[in-house]
């Protein structure tokens, strides 16, 4: 499903965010990106979402090279991805229901359909009762689950999560991880960056990055 071919990202002559990285992720896999801060985990995820372009190499999704994607085609690509960030990036001027409805409205769904599907997504994440609450009234863990609901509401084929448990306590982190595993179990490919050792210990596959280079592809 995803293939990195000799991908490098260079910000200046002697600074590489990624250097000659190659790996593949099959459809339906759950893959963790591991490594200390600043090794290029976020850069790698951003390349899959076309938020960054590689300096060299190719990034393929289902065989299509998105390193040369036209700007006009980026929205369509992102509508098929679920993006989850460390800072949840919820819009604080509206309810969590409105936040979760947004990707559906962007995709052209009717308000009624968007509301039905957003409520269903919140229900899956145990937040149905809080649908009308404002994001700032939720705990960090709840906010992260709202951001997961927003990521999965469009039924994406691929979820990219950048340090989704970084600011959470253990209980909340486990709930977030369980939610992501649940979506993976129904065939959604998940790539999660993390430096949470406990989480990585339980992972089936971990891609280790060190100073922009691949260490182990287990």
């Amino acid at each position, binding site marked *: 499903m995803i293939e990195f071919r000799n991908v490098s990202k260079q910000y200046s002559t002697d600074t590489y965010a990624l250097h000659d990285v190659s790996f593949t992720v099959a459809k339906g896999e759950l893959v963790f990106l591991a490594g200390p801060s600043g090794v290029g985990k976020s850069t790698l995820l951003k390349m899959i979402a076309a938020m960054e372009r590689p300096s060299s190499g190719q990034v393929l999704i289902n065989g299509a090279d998105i390193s040369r994607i036209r700007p006009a085609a980026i*929205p369509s*690509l992102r509508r098929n*991805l679920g993006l989850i960030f460390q800072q949840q*990036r919820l*819009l604080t*001027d509206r309810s969590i229901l409105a936040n979760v409805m*947004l990707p559906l409205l*962007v995709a*052209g769904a009717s308000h009624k359909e968007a509301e039905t599907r957003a409520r269903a997504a919140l229900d899956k994440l145990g937040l149905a009762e809080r649908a009308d609450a404002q994001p700032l009234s939720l705990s960090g863990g709840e906010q992260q689950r709202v951001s997961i609901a*927003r990521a999965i509401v469009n039924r994406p084929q691929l979820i990219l999560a950048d340090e989704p448990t970084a600011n959470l306590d253990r209980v909340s982190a486990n709930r977030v991880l369980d939610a992501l595993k649940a979506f993976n179990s129904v065939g959604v490919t998940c790539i999660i960056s993390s430096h949470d050792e406990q989480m990585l210990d339980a992972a089936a596959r971990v891609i280790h990055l060190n100073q922009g280079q691949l260490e182990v592809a287990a």
Partner: protein
Amino acid sequence: MTNWLRQHRYALGAALLHLRRSPGGFLFNILVVAIALALPFAGVTLLDNVRPMSEQLSVDPEVSVFLRQDTPREQAQALASSLRQAVKDKQAKIIFTPREKALDQLRDKNGLADVLTTLGENPLPDSYVIKIDAFRNAQAGGDVDQLAEQIRTLPGVESVQVDSAWVKRLAALINVLRLALLILAATLGTVVVAVIFNTIRLQVLTQREEILVCKLIGATDNFIHRPFFYTGALLGLCAGGVALGAVALALHPLNQAIAEFAKLYASEFQLTPLPPLAMAGLLALSAGLGLLGAMLSVQRHLSRMN
């Protein structure tokens, strides 16, 4: 089509939601833009009221030909064929007014009957009035001056009075006013675009996070831009409505003053509001200026975000 309508409904809803969140700022912006629009709108209203009057004057100018008192009636009437020859290809109406009829007409005017009885003998000459249909512009006005010169040389003619000069002056004055209004409208139109440009710029800044999130979840540029376009157009439309309302309100006290003035010239001239179609045109223009300001602002500030 349904999707297109849905997207526009969403954009309009989003624009209204943001305006509802800061009604004070929106009203203030409406007021600023309305003040800028009110002046050219008032000018358009004035010109629209004056134009029919000026057109009437320029369409029906008269060349008055006064004959000598001692000109025999036969010679006076025979002059008609010479006048017809003089006007040649110009479409003209030549009306002969015998001195007796002229006196009767004068007598009919209020307050002059007593004065005329004191005169005894009829002091008025036979006369002709030439109404030239082709007289529609300054060039034609020049032709009429030549015609007057030509008529002056005809036998029996005492004097020729051409009223083209003041008609030309009025036409020129109206042209100057029209040009001044155009310059004023262009200047204030630029002000309107600039105000709305800045309003949208501030809105883009306050909604930066929302725009970024929308981009990350796959919103197209059109989806992101549309609410701002609606905001700009709504701002222009509302300001246009306020400006038209203000001009209409100002007509009432203005008309009271004009009525006093017009009475001195035995006229009942009054300023009337613009016809509905013209008002709709000005509202559309205001919305268009708002849209233009929003488009320029979005293009400049959102492209930086990319």
